[in-house]
């Protein structure tokens, strides 16, 4: 009885996992089908895969440029967000003053406001500064989304690390900053990895700000992918191939960063 119940549970788990992966599978198969096969009814389960869609997408210089723009902007955003987010998060975690608490609240309040509310003032500021259609404009504005998130995640994580560890490091001759980077940060890899993954995904999928602030030089992938949809129809093959290509960096980054999650549990000072 118990064994059959377990079998049912496992089967159910597989159904849920496969069910949630089905859209991705559909995307992948559509990207490998010709336009004619993509919507054939009943769906063509067995078909001769074609890489035409990928070749067509990769031959589009505009899409490739947007792809490269996305990679540059998002990596810069994640790096800056981590540098500033770790420092700010540490300050919020370790200082209990009224001003620090107010600052923490202020940071998260920025995240609560709708993007449209900021769009016009940011646009005008960047226009005056000559930053429209530049990488710094996108990095700065993406950081309004990712930095509060990273700061709060890191503040929460730092609070969970016993202050005695730092105190021990200080006794051993570390300054506050070296204690942070030599003791606290190595012990916080799981938190940093989580913050980095989410910051990467948030920035990678951002549509509204690049729509308003980017131009021909800095258009990002989420904007470029919309080009497959127009009044004349949707290029499903191209759209699917481009989607798979857009998912790839997120997947690679997540797999790469995930190691940090595991490493953090065994490395650093907590053993």
């Amino acid at each position, binding site marked *: 009885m118990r064994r059959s119940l377990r079998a049912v549970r496992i089967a159910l788990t597989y159904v849920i996992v496969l069910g949630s992966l089905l859209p991705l599978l559909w995307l992948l198969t559509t990207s490998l089908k010709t336009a*004619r096969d993509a919507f054939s009814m009943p769906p063509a389960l067995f078909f001769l895969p074609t890489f035409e869609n990928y070749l067509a997408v990769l031959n589009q210089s505009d899409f490739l440029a947007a792809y490269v723009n996305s990679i540059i902007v998002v990596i810069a955003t994640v790096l800056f967000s981590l540098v500033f987010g770790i420092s700010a998060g540490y300050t919020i975690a370790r200082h209990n003053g009224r001003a620090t608490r107010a600052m923490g609240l202020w940071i998260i309040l920025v995240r609560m406001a709708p993007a*449209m509310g900021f769009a016009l003032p940011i646009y005008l500021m960047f226009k005056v500064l000559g930053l429209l259609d530049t*990488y*710094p404009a996108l990095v700065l504005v993406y950081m309004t989304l990712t930095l509060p998130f990273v700061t709060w995640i890191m503040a929460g994580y730092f609070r969970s690390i016993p202050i005695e560890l730092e105190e021990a490091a200080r006794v051993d001759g570390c300054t506050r900053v070296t204690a942070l980077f030599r003791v606290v940060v190595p012990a916080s890899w799981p938190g940093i990895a989580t913050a980095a993954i989410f910051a990467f995904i948030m920035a990678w999928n951002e549509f509204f700000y690049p729509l308003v602030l980017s131009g021909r030089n800095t258009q990002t992938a989420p904007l470029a992918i919309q080009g497959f949809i127009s009044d004349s129809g949707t290029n499903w093959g191209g759209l699917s191939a481009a989607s798979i290509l857009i998912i790839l960096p997120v997947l690679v980054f997540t797999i790469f960063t995930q190691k940090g999650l595991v490493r953090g549990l065994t490395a650093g000072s907590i053993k």
Partner: protein
Amino acid sequence: MKKRVLVSIAAVAASVLVLSGCAPSGGGGSEKTLNLLMVQSPSTTRLKTLVPEFTKETGIKVNVDLVPQAGMQAKYNVSLGSGAGQYDVVEAVSTNLSQLTASKWIKPLNSYLDDKSQTPSSYTSGFKGGVLDSLAIDGKTYTIPFEVGADMLYYNKDMFTAAGLDPDNPPTTLTEVLSAAKKLNKPEIGQAGFLARGTRQGNENSFSWIMMWLLNGGRWEDAKGKPKYDVLDEEAARKTTDQYATLMTKYAPSGVGNYGFVEDQAAMQQGKAAMWLDGATLGPSLEDKSASKIAGHVGYAALKGEGGNYIAGAVSGLSVVDTTKNDKEAWQLVQYLTSKKVGIDQALAGVGGTPGRTDVLTDPGVQKLYDPAYLAALSESIKHVNPEYSPVIPQGTEIRGAISVALSKILSGQASNEAAMNEANQEILKILKK
């Protein structure tokens, strides 16, 4: 401590400056530079490739930004609404023309059109069928079309023959469409008689309804020609709703309430439906052998309706931005991108099958490339185009939304035709009072 703070600030500033250095530059120099904003589509992507030719001819440099359709409104609101003067020429489409003119973001072009030194008569004579006049607002022309999305009826010739209908004599009125749809509808073999847009997403179903309503004599005005938008309880609207409901609930595929033009196009290409009423830009893809199972078997018909301008024409045009400091150069660019030469290039590239200029369709190269039946139907449709098919007031989208909700209720059986449209009419009155 103070020193550390200063060092930190300097570090941040340096990072931003370093990044600025990495940023692609926008160019400079003493030559005139224009900035052009268009909505991304195959047609505008092609126009972008033709811009270097303009620069070669005139010495005027042009930066082209293409914005996805989904973000068009937000981009326009911020870049034009801020008055920052980022763009000199922008694309205007039927749905946002009223907003662009009401907000004074674009300027009238009459002074250029009337000036023979700036505009040769051969340029304006290519816009036949009153397209330019129908785009005028208060007698002023604000945009020059490069694409007109006139609607037409597509049909599967083989299915017509199999149903005992003459493929060379397609239906030309909505009454005939209804009668043909009945004969062509064969659910037992997975064949629907008719297709139109059913989804309320993006107010798509209201577009199909408006196509039929215009054919039935409906207009956004009263008998005296004054604007009127609470028209859903009038005869033309009632008749249209009954026809739409009959066609979509009896002769369309099940689940058509979720069909937009994308799903309709796929169903036609897959040979799942016999007739489809929609915009002419969607037609050429039915003849694409790599995507369509019915390529070579497609028929085209221009429907006839009441009044002169009974075809819904989603116009895409180019307008000069009010804040531009380069008026003359901007007008030169508009003229170039809406010229016969560029129109022919668009048509031959297969991306501008519905040019704003009818003289493009008489070009021998274009006539050779397209199905004569398609060109004939297109020429006929363009003659009766009505670019003001959507309410050209700021509340236009909301009004379309009210109609879409009503149609959605009808298709899902939540309300009768009359109840749904009366409710929508009341909603429109509320929207107008806001």
